[in-house]
């Protein structure tokens, strides 16, 4: 059954790839992507399609209203938050509602928020069919990336080049990479380690590292598949990963891991919140304002992944780490000056140590995602006290 569904979904992708270059009208290109999304939902679970398209329709109505009456933005965002929480805590919690958070709702709501924000500022004109394709993009509905409406419009404006051999192979390369990462390498890691965290000492360290690699392979593998499918369909999404585990600090990590989410947090949450605080309560105290914003934004980031205590703690830990790093960086700048910081950053020993520390932190905090905080601390204590 799953195999047939997968085959059907890939047939839809290839049909779009073949048909799109033959279509000249932008409106028909939009219609093709709408039809492709509808067909995919019909092949998987039509109720999820109805729910996601229904919510998208409401967001479109809200965006049009906000572009005329900007003060509706706040109440509408509260409704989006309610929808998000309701999808997890719906009293009936039937299988369809349970699968909504796993099948694209969190991403749809982020795209929706960005759309409403742009409508409020008058920089997005939400036209109905394009908005629907933007909110429910057939090849990236489940887990992003998160793009602004203007970028979706640019993907759909031109017919796109024909699916020639070069483009087919480029797409196939990414799709194959993705499947190898997701179905072979991450599965191999899971079958080898099982991630029960019963071990101690170096064995436990190895298990934590393997889990971090598993998270990376699973998510970046998914992104490879999405980018490959997008390459075939003439709608290539932006890269979402850039060697995140080689980051030399936690700020850099968030520019290399789930890049479009990092951009969303910086542009849609951190900057507006920080500027509001620095214009008002925290005028002249940028570091304090920044610390508050890092903590709030990253805690939100945790809750967005899943609104439970474990993810909240994970997000708060990352927010705290970013705040500590920023405070350290500012202190360093005051102590050794701009040229001293440049020399510090160029030092290979510092670079190696900070990269190792960042990887250790990221790896350790992933444990808080899969285990309650006290249990995670207890497990971690076995690294040094077997």
């Amino acid at each position, binding site marked *: 059954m799953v195999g047939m569904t997968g085959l059907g979904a890939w047939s839809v992708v290839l049909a779009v790839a073949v048909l799109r270059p033959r279509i000249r009208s932008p409106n028909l290109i939009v219609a093709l992507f709408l039809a492709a999304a509808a067909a995919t939902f019909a092949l998987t679970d039509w109720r999820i399609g109805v729910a996601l398209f229904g919510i998208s329709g409401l967001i479109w109505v809200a965006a049009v209203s906000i572009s005329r009456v900007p003060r509706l933005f706040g109440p509408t965002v509260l409704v989006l938050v309610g929808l998000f929480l309701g999808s997890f805590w719906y009293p009936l919690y039937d299988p369809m509602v349970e699968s909504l958070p796993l099948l694209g709702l969190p991403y749809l709501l982020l795209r929706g928020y960005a759309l409403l924000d742009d409508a409020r500022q008058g920089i997005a004109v939400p036209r109905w069919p394009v908005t629907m394709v933007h909110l429910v993009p057939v090849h990236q509905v489940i887990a992003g990336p998160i793009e602004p409406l203007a970028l979706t419009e640019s993907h759909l404006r031109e017919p796109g080049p024909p699916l020639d051999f070069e483009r087919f192979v480029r797409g196939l390369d990414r799709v194959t990479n993705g499947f190898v990462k997701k179905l072979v390498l991450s599965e191999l890691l899971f079958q080898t380690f099982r991630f029960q965290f019963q071990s101690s000492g170096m064995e436990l360290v190895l298990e934590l590292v393997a889990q971090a690699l598993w998270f990376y392979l699973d998510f970046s593998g998914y992104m490879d598949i999405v980018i490959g499918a997008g390459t075939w369909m003439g709608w290539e999404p932006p890269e979402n990963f850039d060697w995140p585990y080689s980051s030399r600090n936690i700020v850099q990590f968030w520019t290399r891991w789930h890049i479009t989410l990092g951009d969303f947090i910086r*542009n849609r949450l951190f*900057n507006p919140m920080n500027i509001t605080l620095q214009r008002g309560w925290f005028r002249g105290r940028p570091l304090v304002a920044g610390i508050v914003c890092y903590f709030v934004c990253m805690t939100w980031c945790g809750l967005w992944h899943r609104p439970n205590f474990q993810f909240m703690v994970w997000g708060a830990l990352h927010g705290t780490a970013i705040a500590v790093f920023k405070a350290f960086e500012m202190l360093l700048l005051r102590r050794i000056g701009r040229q001293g910081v440049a020399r510090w950053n160029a030092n290979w020993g510092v670079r190696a140590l900070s990269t190792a520390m960042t990887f250790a932190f990221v790896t350790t905090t992933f444990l808080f995602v899969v285990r309650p905080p006290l249990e995670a601390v207890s497990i971690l204590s076995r690294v040094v006290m077997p």
Partner: protein
Amino acid sequence: MSAMPRLVRVFREVFDDETLTVTAGTTAKDVVGWDSLTHVSLIVAVESEFGIRFSSSEINGMANVGELLRLVEAKTA
């Protein structure tokens, strides 16, 4: 008259460096310490210096000092 000299003064105050040189082509990558946190401090300082306000999209969309200068000059014209 160009707003550039006043803008350079704001940069030097925010980055606490009297020798700092910025041109229209300068980007965040060219100045040590110009990150998302300092960017907002810079924006607030520019707003205060010129008595203007930037929108979120303007703050997010500035690619270099030249674009900041263009916005300042458009808002103070």
